[in-house]
């Protein structure tokens, strides 16, 4: 029962990943792609948690921890590079 719920939730998160990927591919401006990339990284953290739940291995959560710490740096670097005013 719980395994079925986990797989269903992973499928829904996969739909979110596909929507964000769509916006990433056809976003009109570069900042739209940056926003879509932000959403992609957050959904990826959720995917790592789902992988840990399905495999029942808590060590995978360390990957999610480091990714949650470092993934926003890419977004901030690109956004500050695109803005001349900072």
């Amino acid at each position: 029962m719980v395994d079925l719920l986990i797989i269903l939730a992973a499928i829904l998160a996969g739909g979110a990943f596909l929507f964000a990927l769509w916006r990433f591919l056809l976003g009109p401006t570069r900042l739209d792609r940056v926003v879509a990339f932000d959403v992609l990284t957050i959904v990826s953290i959720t995917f790592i948690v789902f992988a840990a739940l399905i495999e029942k291995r808590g060590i995978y959560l360390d990957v999610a921890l480091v990714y949650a710490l470092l993934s926003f740096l890419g977004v901030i670097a690109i956004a500050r590079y695109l803005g001349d005013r900072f």
Partner: protein
Amino acid sequence: MSAFIDFLGGLSLLAGSAFLLFGGLGLVRMPDIFNRIQAGTKTTTLGTLLTLLGAAMLHPEWSLKLLLIGVFLIFTNPLSSQVTACTAHYRGIKKSSLTKVDRLADDESESMEKSVSKNPDSEHKDKEEAEL
């Protein structure tokens, strides 16, 4: 009791993923980059936090790591969205006609008016200093 908590954890996982899905849908459907930032950040923060809560219900021994991931998300997610929105504003990306409120532009026009009204005083002071 344990099975009930497991079921609640599964439902929380499902609710979090539904929020992620709606966030992605808003990212595609919204007309404007500012609305896209709004849809893409708020819903994904709540969705990821609900997912972490569900994982902590399913495996209580992981709850410290999951709590750390949640705290990092709460700290970093608004930061990246704020920097992106600031850059979009200063690059002059056009708002759609449906976007009405722009507090940053209002604040900037107010501060411009204040600086214009303060300018004679400062010039006067400068002159006084030069005379001294």
